């Protein structure tokens, strides 16, 4: 990962919990899931994200095809910040699907997409970048 590449994360709230065999249920297990996590050079590798999830929650994802569940947007944002830090990216923009749709609706030219995502996303800056080791234990991410 080049250190000048920012990350983008899009998440959704899922109402459906799906067991392997048997009917679908709508219930307490419904949570936030990440639908996309990418940068200007492409999607972030699935394995890396799964490993970070396990590190974050101390347990693997329930379904390897859906990154989650996350209990709250705050936890999801903390997870995004962790990935951003490990990839040495300067920032990560966190968007709900609603934020994403608002971004897309506002543009008519694909060249404006990046700007729209940045405008509608919640930005987390990786403050660790460019700082000396003495600041290592300072707060790593700052919400803007």
């Amino acid at each position: 990962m080049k250190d000048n590449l920012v990350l983008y994360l899009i998440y959704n709230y899922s109402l459906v919990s799906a067991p392997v065999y048997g009917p679908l249920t709508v219930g307490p297990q419904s949570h936030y899931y990440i639908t996309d996590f990418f940068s200007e050079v492409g999607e972030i590798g699935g394995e890396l994200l799964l490993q970070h999830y396990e590190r974050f929650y101390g347990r693997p994802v329930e379904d390897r095809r859906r990154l989650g569940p996350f209990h709250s947007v705050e936890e999801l944002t903390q997870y995004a910040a962790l990935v951003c830090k490990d990839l040495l990216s300067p920032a990560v923009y966190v968007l709900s699907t609603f934020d994403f749709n608002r971004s897309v609706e506002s543009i008519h030219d694909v060249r404006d997409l990046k700007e729209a995502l940045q405008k509608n996303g919640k930005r987390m800056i990786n403050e660790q970048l460019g700082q000396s080791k003495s600041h290592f234990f300072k707060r790593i991410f700052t919400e803007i």
Partner: protein
Amino acid sequence: MLASPQSITPTDATFPGENWFYYFKTSASLWKSKIESLQHNHMIMVPIYWAFHAENGNDIDFGLTRPEANLGLLAKIVKEAGKELIFLLPFGPFPFLPNGGLPSHLARTLSLDENHKAQVLIDGEGKLNKLYSFFDPRVYQAYRQFIFAMASYFEKEKIIAEVVGTYTGHTDGNGFHSYMEDYSKAFENGFSRYLSLAKKDKENPDESPVGQEQLKKFEYIKMMEELYITSAKEAFSDLWSGVLKYSFLGGTPQDFLVRGVQGQDVSSRYMTPLLETIIHDVIPSSVLLPGEVKTGPLGKLLGDLVNVGLIEKKLDTKIYHDELSLSFTPLVFFEIFQNPLWAVTQQRVWERLGLLNFLSNQYKWTYLLKEDLKHLDSYDVVSEKILVVSGHLLGKKDFQILQKVLMNGGRIILDKTGLEASLERKLESFFLENSIKTEKFNYVSVVTHATFGTGKLFIFEGDKLLAAPQPKQFSFWENMMNLFGPPHLKVMEDEDVCYYWKTRGPTPGELAYQEIRRVCFFNPSSYKKKVRLTPGQNFAFLKFGAAVNTKVESTSMGVALEMLPGASITLDFGYYET
């Protein structure tokens, strides 16, 4: 043959790929010269741009005000050029057109995907196309009005051309996703009406348990698709030639994000999605990709996979299943039936049972994933393909089809998990009544192997296999295929090398063989790569062809390839029975 992308000027926006012609992108005065310039192609595919003919919602124009809307003139020019014309009629959004092709007054509700993200795509010229819901009743009414006006115009102008309904969507590792699928407010409103009607209907009571809403949604989407198809069939009657299902490269939500944020494209990104179209039994389309991306291995693979034969076969299933044909067709060993809802509900049982992982390792791209709620209706009982089916979804009718397949000498793999007790008893009686030999052994699950003449049936317990770790699942399938699987050559390839298999019957000069198999290799990476094929029993290496930047070495250890960046080659093998 359809033009390979290299044979058309990459910058010509009127020919976006695979012989599609965008009549609305150029002056009608240039149609003749452009169509005549396609010297080696006898088939022209013309997608109908609804909004181009009916922009304001009041008048429908087929050339009265704009010569570029004159489809009669276009048909005449194509005929005079000695080419065959196919009009592609939309059933849902056309992702390569602004608003998905909808007239702007109908583009009211943005279409949302299963994650509730707006469906947006980037076309071959880098333009943004937002898709809008086809579930708005006003859209359906206007659509009907448009196609009946078009059909009546065709009749009046005596236009002779094939009219083909066109499903559009994209494939990814999870399956084929139609652009018609939509979870917007327009869809939800229509779905609520559908549910309340279904509840009122005494013959169709809503007995579904909690959580069956997904099933109902799926049924509703299918019903709406059927409604559009029926209208089109009704309108065009004699000119109606069937339905084609297209998967658009560069058309996934992830492609949009990466292409949109990155601002550039790489062809290697599309090699695997292109090959995935084989297992999902759909036609690939590259019209969303810019011309410069469709060069090298991707261009070759596209030219190889998308040809007139493929289109004709998709429109005529009888020819499609003629496996003794002398022209190469993709090699398919397995037909794996799955409920389309599995993709929606993340259940994907065959994947969880390790079968897809095993096949993609040992029988890469040689299987079809069939998604059908009616389940086995589309399976040809005399097919030589191995039928893979889950007991979880078998009904009485499907069960009868299974019996027929076995009696016809076919091969079946059945996961008995979820099989109704009455059907299980029926199966036991069927074995007894027909004196079918069965043997049982225990490996991960209890496996029953039944044989009837050349017919074979393998029954296993999916719930037991599901609990096994991945390596154990892999070895389960490996052992099962050793007993049961089709003969195939083993390929060991470096990462990034792509390949797929084709087959055909022997020519009179090849009668020593039952079948000729061709494997096509591509190296889309920027590095030198190696491939090795181990010698297989009953296979003879015949020849190699179309070699580009590839060194071939054939020894008693097999065939070894050294492929430079952008390289490609085909190898032919004869299969004989001893």
